[in-house]
């Protein structure tokens, strides 16, 4: 087993991996950018190394600096978390060169699955269903028109290197095709430095369901059940659950076996996720593979009783999977909410700043994976994911009940968060009935004024409380704390702004 692991990440996922290391008796090495010195992952690590300015390109994405820290600290493995370098084949190769184990798949497996068009070609060979369309980049408008006519409108244009909805266009008719193709190409070029765009049939109101797999380095691959990830806002996942309310054991077996086939076709090792689109007739189509740990892995952990990060580490250390497919049983139901620093009053615009008060939920069936703390200044430079709140229950109804209860306990003062949005989702009758698809949240948000009519009593309580807070004045306010902690930078240095990193497109 490894003695020391470097975590090439920040935020909640760095904390989550550090915890796994400590649980296994392994020392954890943190790296941090200038604005992250007071971050939770640095507090919790056994060693911590500065790696440069806030801009991710100069710190968390800087392969050379991270490899350098690995050598200096004597780490024998690197966990990349998600985002940043986690799906970067060059980084995986650089680890090999440096004699440090990369906790994830090989560079070759990453490259095999990294391009959507190449992955589609592979699926075609392996006989895994994927959305009708082409498996190569479009060469011309004429070709696009020909394929679209063959598979039928509406069609979807997608960037081969894509993610996060960028370079993606829904085309309803032939008339729209040219301008959509042009704009998809130029957006793909800007976002990924690659204008390859392919075409596939648009699935109307699909569900997005993904299958978790684990593969050891001795040829054993298993699937750990699916996750329902249809609740997305602007193509970003917001809430995920396990199991999917629409997947029955037979469908799970078929999807799982297809996922294992996908992984094996790429000689895939370690943890990975195969994403599927599911149409209204419950046909599923291969969408893409994420060659890393997912943000939403906790729902699988709660329902299988396994720890995916422990298992990632064991697999990377050369251990065999300690179970076979028959041993894996789903029990109960788990739902995850991604808590973001976002302003619900302002179209969910990011809301960085100092956290002046933090009330954190706990109790039965509640797991909280967090990267924030009271007094911390949420930096403006990175993805605004603060924490994940996961509810487990004997069944879906109990999971919803526990999560709703926990969301009522959750409070973050000083900045705005999307917590109230989750309360709205969990109270929605169609969500309770599990009637949703990937367009559900955007429709929910467009129904502007359907806030639950507040009862007069609680509204009067709010009025009285507002008066009391005014009467008590500064003494009652959390934001005027006397103690000047270093976690709270009163004002972010202006230089951060010059180099603000792009919000990571995570799914």
């Amino acid at each position, binding site marked *: 087993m490894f003695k020391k692991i470097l975590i090439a990440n920040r935020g909640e996922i760095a904390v989550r991996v550090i915890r796994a290391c400590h649980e296994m008796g392994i020392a954890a090495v943190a790296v941090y950018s200038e604005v992250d010195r007071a971050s939770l992952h640095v507090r919790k690590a056994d060693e911590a190394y500065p790696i440069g300015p806030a801009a991710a390109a100069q710190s968390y994405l800087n392969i050379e600096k991270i490899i350098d820290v690995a050598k200096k600290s004597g780490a024998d493995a690197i966990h990349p978390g998600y985002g940043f370098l986690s799906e970067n084949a060059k980084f995986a190769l650089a680890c090999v060169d440096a004699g440090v184990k990369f906790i994830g798949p090989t560079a070759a497996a990453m490259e095999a699955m990294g391009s959507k068009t190449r992955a589609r070609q592979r699926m075609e060979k392996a006989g895994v269903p994927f959305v009708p369309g082409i498996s190569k980049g479009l060469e011309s408008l004429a070709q696009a028109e020909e394929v679209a006519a063959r598979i039928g409108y509406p069609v979807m244009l997608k960037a081969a290197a894509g993610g996060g909805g960028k370079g993606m266009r829904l085309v309803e008719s032939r008339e729209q095709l040219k301008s959509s193709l042009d704009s998809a190409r130029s957006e793909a070029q800007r976002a990924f430095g690659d204008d390859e765009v392919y075409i596939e049939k648009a699935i109307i109101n699909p569900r997005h369901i993904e299958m978790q797999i684990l593969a050891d380095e001795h040829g054993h691959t298993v699937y750990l059940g699916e996750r329902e990830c249809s609740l997305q806002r602007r193509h970003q996942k917001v809430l995920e659950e396990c199991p999917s309310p629409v997947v029955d054991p037979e469908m799970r077996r078929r999807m799982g076996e297809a996922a294992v086939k996908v992984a094996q076709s790429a000689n895939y090792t370690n943890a990975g996720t195969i994403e599927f689109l599911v149409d209204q007739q419950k046909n599923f189509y291969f969408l893409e593979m994420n060659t890393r740990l997912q943000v939403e892995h906790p729902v699988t952990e709660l329902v299988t009783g396994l720890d995916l990060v422990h298992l990632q580490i064991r697999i990377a250390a050369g251990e065999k999977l300690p179970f076979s497919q028959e041993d894996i049983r789903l029990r109960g139901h788990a739902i995850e909410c991604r808590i973001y620093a976002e*302003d619900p009053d302002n179209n969910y*615009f990011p809301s960085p700043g100092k956290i002046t*008060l933090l009330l954190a939920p706990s109790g039965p069936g509640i797991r909280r994976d967090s990267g924030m703390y009271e007094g911390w200044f949420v930096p403006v*430079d990175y993805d605004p994911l603060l924490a994940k709140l996961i509810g487990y229950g004997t069944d879906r109804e109990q999971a919803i009940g526990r999560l709703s209860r926990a969301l009522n306990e959750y409070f973050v003062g000083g900045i705005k968060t999307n917590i109230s949005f989750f309360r709205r989702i969990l109270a929605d009758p169609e969500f309770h009935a599990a009637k949703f698809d990937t367009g559900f949240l955007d429709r929910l948000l467009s129904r502007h004024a359907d806030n639950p009519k507040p009862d007069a009593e609680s509204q009067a*309580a709010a*009025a009285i409380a*507002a008066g009391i807070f*005014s009467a008590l004045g500064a003494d009652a306010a959390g934001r005027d704390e006397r103690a000047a902690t270093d976690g709270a930078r009163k004002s972010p240095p202006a230089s951060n702004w010059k180099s603000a990193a792009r919000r990571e497109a995570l799914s």
Partner: protein
Amino acid sequence: MIYDVSIDGHSYRLELNRSDGQWTCRLDNQSVELDAVLARPDVLSLRIGNKAYEVKCERVADDLHLWVGSVRYSAEVRDPRSLRSRSRSADDHGPRKLTAPMPGKVVRILTPEGQSVAAGGGVLVVEAMKMQNEVKSPKHGIVQKIMVKEGAAVNAGDVLAVVE
């Protein structure tokens, strides 16, 4: 002490007095049996009659929200006899300050000084995490003053401009 309180746009007249840690309270001229304990800064445990409420106070820049159980209310409080008065109510008279809704960088000025702007019209653009946000004028008027330059880093609550 008398307060004019507005909760999600609904106005209340609130009379509050405290002696010996006990509150007396009248809401819209109705007497209310009130027992309040500040559990932590910004967290009140209220008993109104025998009903219990935990109320949390969310203060971000000039925005005030109160969380009562699972509901989040926007709140405004005006204390007619105090300087702690705060109001963003629809008073169209006098100059109005535009403040930054969150820390960020001013990337563009849309309406320069001296030009007129409609109610809801954009005055400048603030960016954080590569997302851009228009700061809008609450009223029709003239942009009297722009306090920041393009490229400036600003904090939540900083005054960015004044519309007269």
